[in-house]
């Protein structure tokens, strides 16, 4: 028998161009594994440099790989929308890798696998963003999640193990529920392909109970990944236990990946059933915003505070999913873009402030930072104000777009709850600023984190880039927003 390769390629629609970014990332990961084999423990940091170079080279490829036709038998779609999110993931991964080098040395946990597992997690996110099939989505999701379980446990301490175990068990639990949802979807639709489901959407009876079960299961599975109430309880523990760069990537990357698929799924395949899922997401969004903001006030540990703040942000981004029109979806994308910079920036400062023994993460450790490290305190204040949504920072424009879209679509109460949670959230962000600018450090000896925090070039570069981007996105959001709108228009 003679196989006609070209013909098979044709039937399967094997378009390698569509998976070029993922393929390159995989190659990078394999190269790293091989290099790791030959490196001594004290030279592991050079692996970080290779990772960084690789990511920077792949970034333009990911940004320019735009091919709106579904490939691989409709499994993958490399449209502008996927490219937008891929850029967010890779930028987040770059930041995490750059700050990891010093952080790992600080907690004496230099390991080669750390870097390529970060790459695998990123690959998982990228697969999710460009998945056009629920099976492909699940593969991406599991790749990302499994990588994160390992990364969270990387700091071999009690809190690290505890957080990782909780994340793992509950994550497996939520994956199961998500899988149930996928199964039910297949059950009533007869396909897992999003394009197919969208095409047959109108034929489905609106009172189909399997459909409702599928929606609830899928929402629950995703709500876990974005840490929405009441599926949020794992995140403060996991955030606290993980090495700070991983926490940063977890809060930005996995959330963005979940939202990327959320939008594609509910905006495309399930858009016909908007009436069914919008009400459910409405309640989740409102509850998540309020719970995140109020519980954050009580936190004493800055990582836990940022974890709850991240929950509140997920609630606000969910508003955009509830609204689900072009403007709202673009708003969600813009929000994730801004969030990548401001949250990464805040976590970079947290990583810088953490001490060798893992302490220095209490909010009271930030007392008097302004007096000793004015620049560091200033950028931290900038990130926090941006997270709080104060103009003219990027956080403000992002919130503004989402809330404006809600108002335009007449979701007045949801917008009002969004404003309330924003007002509440200002209290805990301002508390850190208050400590930095208006308190003296508790201990004036050299062990105080305020005086100790070493500033290496890597940290400075990341802080500079994130701070400038946060400001620029606030003062001039139009180019990115236009890109997001253009990407959404082909969805």
């Amino acid at each position, binding site marked *: 028998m003679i196989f006609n390769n070209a013909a098979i390629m044709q039937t399967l629609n094997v378009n390698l161009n569509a998976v070029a970014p993922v393929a390159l990332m995989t190659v990078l990961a394999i190269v790293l594994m091989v290099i790791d084999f030959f490196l001594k423990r004290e030279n592991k940091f050079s692996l970080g440099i290779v990772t960084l170079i690789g990511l920077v080279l792949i970034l333009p490829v990911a940004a320019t790989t735009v091919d709106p036709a579904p490939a691989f038998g409709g499994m993958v779609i490399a449209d502008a929308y996927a490219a937008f999110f891929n850029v967010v993931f890779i930028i987040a991964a770059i930041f995490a890798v750059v700050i990891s080098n010093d952080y790992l040395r600080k907690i004496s946990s230099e390991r080669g696998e750390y870097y390529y597992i970060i790459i695998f997690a990123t690959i998982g996110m990228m697969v999710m963003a460009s998945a056009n099939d629920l099976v492909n989505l699940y593969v991406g999701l599991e790749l990302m999640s499994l990588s994160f379980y390992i990364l969270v446990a990387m700091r071999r301490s009690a809190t690290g193990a505890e957080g990782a175990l909780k994340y793992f068990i*509950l994550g497996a639990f939520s994956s199961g529920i998500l899988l149930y949802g996928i199964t039910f979807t297949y059950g009533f639709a007869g396909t897992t392909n999003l394009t197919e489901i969208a095409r047959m959407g109108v034929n489905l009876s609106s*009172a189909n109970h399997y459909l409702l079960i599928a929606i609830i299961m899928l929402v629950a599975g995703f709500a876990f990944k974005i840490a929405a109430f009441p599926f949020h309880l794992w995140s403060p523990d996991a955030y606290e236990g993980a090495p700070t760069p991983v926490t940063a990537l977890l809060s930005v990357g996995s959330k963005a990946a979940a939202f990327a698929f959320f939008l594609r799924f509910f905006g495309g395949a399930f858009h016909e059933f908007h009436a069914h899922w919008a009400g459910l997401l409405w309640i989740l969004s409102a509850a998540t915003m309020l719970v995140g903001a109020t519980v954050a006030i*009580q936190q004493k540990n800055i990582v836990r505070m940022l974890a709850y703040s991240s929950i509140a942000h997920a609630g606000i981004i969910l508003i955009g999913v509830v609204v689900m029109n072009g*403007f709202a979806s673009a708003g969600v994308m813009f929000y994730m873009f801004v969030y990548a910079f401001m949250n990464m920036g805040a976590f970079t400062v947290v990583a810088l402030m953490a001490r060798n023994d893992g302490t220095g993460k209490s909010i009271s450790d930030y007392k008097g930072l302004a007096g000793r490290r004015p620049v560091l305190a200033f950028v931290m204040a900038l990130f926090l104000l941006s997270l709080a949504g104060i103009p003219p920072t990027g956080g403000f424009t992002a919130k503004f777009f989402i809330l404006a879209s809600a108002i335009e679509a007449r979701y007045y109460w949801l917008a009002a709850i969004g404003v309330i949670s924003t*007002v509440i959230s200002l*209290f805990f962000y301002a508390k850190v600023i*208050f400590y930095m600018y*208006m*308190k003296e450090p508790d201990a004036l000896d050299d062990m105080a984190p305020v005086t100790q925090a070493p500033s290496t070039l890597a940290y400075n570069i990341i802080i500079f880039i994130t701070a400038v981007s946060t400001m620029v996105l606030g003062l001039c959001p139009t180019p990115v927003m236009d890109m997001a709108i253009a990407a959404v228009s082909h969805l």
Partner: protein
Amino acid sequence: MVQYVWLIPLLPLIGAFINGVFGSRLSKTTVGVLASALMGVSFIIACSIFVHIISLPVHERSIEVSVYNWMTSGQFSVDINFLVDPLSTLMILVVTGVGFLIHVYSTGYMHHDKAFWRFFSYLNLFVFFMLMLVLGGNYLVMFLGWEGVGLCSYLLIGFWYEKKSASDAGKKAFVVNRVGDFGFILGLFLLFWTLSDSGIHSLNYGEVFAHAGSIDPATITIITLLLFVGACGKSAQFPLYVWLPDAMEGPTPVSALIHAATMVTAGVYMVARNNALYSLAPFTGEIVASVGIFTAFFAASIGLVQNDIKKVLAYSTVSQLGYMFAAVGVGAYTAGVFHLMTHAFFKGLLFLGSGSVIHAMSGEQDMRKMGGLHKHLKFTSTTFIIGAVAIAGIPPLAGFWSKDEILWEVFEKGHIYIWITGLVTAGMTAFYMFRQVFMTFTGECRADEHTKHHIHESPKSMTVPLIILAVLAVTGGVVGIPFFEEGTAAHHFLNSVFSHGAAVVNHQGAAAHDSEAIYGGLEFILMIVSVCVGALGIFLASLMYYEPMKKYAPSFWKAEVMASKFSGLYTLLYNKWYVDEIYDACIVNPIKRACAACLRFDLGVLDGMVNGAGWLTRFAAWLSHKFDIYVIDGLVNSMATGVSLDGRILRRLSSGQIQHYALVFVLGLIVIFGGFILGY
């Protein structure tokens, strides 16, 4: 010239940046000179813009300068733009002018402070945001400034954060302003979505005002009321005024600049700027005027018995802001803005004067420990007395013209009760101001020997601004002198801005201007009445507190006698009507408890649910265990053993936290399912 208006806010921003980042490495002289010089240049530009605006014909005096497009999405677009018109020109003159003087004053006042650079960085930043607030050509830019001045005010109140009272006061200002800002944001959103409903996707003042007429009256009333809640917070009106007296913990130049001359007037400016909206909502106008005049009276009553030199001025500021709101509430926008301007002069002067006194008294603020300071502080006391005369409403000083115009407009528009309350408040104002003057500058010095030894006149950098402000407090009123053919100069200048509102008001009450001649005479009579009331206030104060006059006072007219005779009222006033205590009991403590409860809910109730579930199972196990032992004892012993084992396992399971989390997960899922089943 007008194209370069963006330079006015930019220069202070540059100053804030340089001083904030490099300030710790620069000398104090460099920092002070840099900050003040940039303010001075801003002021010069503001002056040239004023001259330019004056030279234009009236109908061309509103110029929009767009700097760049901030954000566009769909039909919606926001620019960073500035609106240069008579109102904003007046405001930038006041902000940069008074701001410049206070910067110069601060170089002297703060000279001994170790965080000198930080102070000037904050102060410059504040001026930047204040200028954005008053210059902004759309609501979003105004909001940017609005939030920014709040932040700077918070940083500056808590500037001496080592003092617990200062950082507490900062926190209080922040929290109270949040309440106001919340209303403000909701108002903006309501306005935005009402307009976008009718197809207007712009937040520019011009377009909003042009379409204001199409909004239905109920909505516009709610919008204006919500915006007024914001104004109440920022401009310290009842019931949100409580932060301002505490804000006196900040350095005195801050009190003068932020908490007297500029930021606290932002609310008045906002209402005046939105006159097109407020004129369409007469009910809101009533509320604004009533809250304003009530605050004026209420704060003045507290001011009568305070002993802290700055607290008296703080309550006086709250009271005077109330006057301004009374004016803008009844639609007398020009009068309100005119009083805003003169108030900036004389209250800035009084605060700086009190700062000079405190400087001389080595930080003492209690007036009971002062006295006789006129001998030592010639410049300070003279300028302070000029300020006091101005605020007391004695002609021809600035305060007289502006206060009188408010009272006249209120009277003319038929609000007799507001007029009477305003008149009584004017008397009280004169009384407490001169009580302060007499207690501080006349009589015997009551300070201890050590302090007495150190009393000295302040340096030139402090006295020169005092003198300039004193000149302004004397002459600033000329623009508002009535009896010109075309109304006052201030009216003439500001009219074009308030024409939106005026058109509506005149339409509603066209009969008001029928007999100008009679009104002219009446205005003169009322003027004399208000001067008499002011003079009476001063006279009564002198009988009680001025040594040479005390012998003419009747026996009951003595501070101690009055305090003991009306001890109930005195205690009530001295304790500020117990408003802070009421807030603590009714709002602050319940909220604290609620927040703690939220955390307990997350940890406790959910945890409790799990434990409860575990406990129930255990209880069931125990019950069946007992049941087994005592009821079916001996019959199924083996089974009983099995059940108690089961209970132990469950107990162990529910003590861990992952189970707790997973249970919440499942419970959440069940609730969602339940909701959906009920829903369909």
